[in-house]
């Protein structure tokens, strides 16, 4: 039972980490009114995909995604999972670089970015090498530290709200669906790790439902806090709307006069969890594809994290970082659609096959 709660916590933390930074900008670019529609629609799609994914995984108890693909055949595994691993490397790299840039702008203006990069890498690689148990335990700590900060940020920003800045409206929903940016958006719902952890505990969709709902609520708040404070036309001119929204909050009686500090601190915790989970996923895939006794999974983590560190280090400027990050989430969206469906279909077919065979 505890492990299920831990999985839910990791799920929430990863979503927060990825959703804080580029997510609101994407939504503002997608629509001018009725932002909630886009957020809800994305949440809804995510629910469907998770449902299919878990349904598919439950056909194979005690197996994780890689085992299932290995049953399909070694080549199927390599074809489907190699792009996924490459994508994860890119995502780790640009996610960490993006967070580094924001952390620098929040509270370390004179620190060179590579030192923060090294720090974040070192901690998340260490956590990933230590394995799933460490990730779970540290995620509970980080959850307990970060969630109060996040909630405090949300509630303290209420003092600057002007509800009239948002047009209450109902769009004809079809338009944003055909925008390529909506595809990127889908990539922000990272749930694929569920299949890598579910080997021991059987997950049911109902347990994840609350997590999904709270994540959708969080996404709504991330989108609507800058909107309530600045309004749509202002928000599109800002590079980091949520950061600016936090910066505008002034509570004179409060001993900390900068809300952005809390925001920056919570980012540090979130990015460590997200990246260690992604690195751990990479090691799992590589360990099972390359069945060599000599190569331990920690070697894979170190090797791939060095690759992504090099990526992260050599991106020249922030706008490129954002662009690359978007591309890698777009690619992630591709595997988010392909992996649940292939697993579900394969599970469905093999179950039928078994039944026929018995008759």
């Amino acid at each position: 039972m505890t492990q299920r709660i831990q999985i839910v916590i990791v799920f929430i933390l990863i979503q927060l980490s990825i959703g804080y930074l580029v997510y609101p900008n994407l939504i503002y670019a997608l629509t001018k009114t009725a932002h909630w529609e886009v957020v809800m629609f994305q949440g809804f799609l995510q629910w469907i995909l998770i449902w299919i994914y878990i349904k598919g995984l439950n056909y194979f108890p005690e197996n994780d995604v890689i085992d299932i693909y290995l049953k399909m055949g070694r080549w199927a595994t390599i074809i489907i999972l190699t792009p996924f691993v490459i994508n994860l490397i890119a995502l780790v790299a640009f996610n960490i670089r993006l967070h580094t840039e924001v952390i620098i702008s929040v509270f370390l203006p004179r620190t060179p970015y590579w030192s923060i990069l090294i720090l974040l890498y070192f901690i998340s690689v260490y956590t990933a090498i230590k394995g799933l148990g460490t990730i779970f335990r540290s995620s509970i700590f980080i959850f307990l530290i970060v969630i109060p900060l996040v909630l405090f940020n949300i509630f303290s920003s209420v003092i600057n709200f002007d509800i009239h800045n948002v047009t209450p409206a109902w769009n004809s929903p079809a338009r944003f669906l055909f925008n390529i940016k909506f595809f990127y958006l889908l990539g922000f719902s990272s749930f694929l790790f569920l299949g890598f952890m579910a080997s021991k505990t059987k997950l049911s969709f109902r347990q994840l439902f609350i997590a999904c709902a709270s994540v959708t609520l969080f996404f709504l708040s991330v989108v609507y806090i800058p909107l309530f404070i600045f309004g749509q036309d202002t928000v599109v001119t800002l590079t980091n709307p949520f950061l600016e929204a936090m910066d505008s909050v002034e509570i004179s009686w409060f001993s900390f006069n900068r809300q952005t500090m809390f925001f920056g601190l919570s980012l540090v915790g979130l990015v460590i969890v997200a990246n260690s989970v992604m690195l751990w996923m990479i090691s799992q895939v590589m360990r099972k594809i390359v069945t060599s006794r000599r190569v331990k999974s920690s070697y894979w983590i170190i090797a791939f994290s060095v690759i992504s560190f090099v990526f992260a280090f050599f991106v020249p400027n922030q706008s490129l970082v954002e662009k690359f990050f978007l591309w890698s989430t777009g690619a992630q969206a591709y595997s988010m659609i392909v992996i649940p469906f292939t697993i579900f279909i394969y599970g469905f077919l093999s179950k039928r096959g078994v039944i026929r065979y018995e008759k």
Partner: protein
Amino acid sequence: MRNNNFYKFLIVFMSTISLCGCWDIKDINKRSIPLVMGISKEDDEEYRLTLQIPIPKSNNQISRIVTEKGESVASVLGKIRTNSENAVDFSQIQLIVIQKNLANNQRELRSLIKFLMGSEEIPSRALVAITDDNVDKVLSNINDKLGVNASAIYDYFNKGVGWAPELLNTPIWEVYRSPFLSTKDIAVPAVRAGKDTVLVFEGSEILRKGKLIDRISPEESQFINMFQNKNVKGKIENLGVATVMITNSSVQNKTSMKNKKPQVLSDLNLKINILERKEGTTNNRIRKELERVTEKRFYDLLKQTQSSHTDIFGFGQQFHHLISYHELKDWRNDYYPNLRVNFEVHANME
């Protein structure tokens, strides 16, 4: 086993390295922390930047004024950094005073505000004020007054609820936002150097899409606070026959569209406390008088702003559910001049 302990000890020991913390840390006693920044532009050529930096000695009562000139605000900030004895930390700037001749230039003002908003160091919640006086004079005025704390100019704007209800607080992010909002304009407080006090509040400058339009009196700027439902508790009003203090206020607006013309039913509820009265004046008369004066003041201001197409009250904000997003873009020119406001004041005794 002993070897293992040695490594553990080494790791714990290494973690102390991170204790020295951030890169190039500068202790707080080695920084100069300016509180107020004054910006002006002389002869349309060079920016002139003045900083008021408190000296943390002798009960915080002295501060120094640093002035520098340059082609852009950013370059002046750099120059001040270079020439200062300490590291100058701009992250605690609380107030930015802009001289009127600079603020009059719409383009300059917009780029200035954009710079201040985009700057990572200057906090976007610093307040903005406009002055007719020379900026140097406003900032150095603080040193001539006896017993005034170095943070006086900041304290002036942050008295708290119930002390100065007319005073407006306009942070940078609101000024930055105002040209993008199509249904609301803002007012920026106007101050000048006082003879006995550090600052004198002169009313507010109305900004329409980042352009200075008009100045309104302190009484009128109180309305703006009122319509943002900020409590104007503590406002003292002289009615000729009596003097009353407003102890509570609340505004309720009902919006509707009639023949494509916007309409607002606005009710202002005031709770008053009578401080003094001429003999023989009834409570009822005082109430009626207050209602009459307030209504007249409101309609005058409304007429004035409608002729300049400046929605200072933000009435348009409340039409978001009646007019579509794209039509509201023309709120200032198409709708606001035709807006009918039915304003009623209901004064009640405490």
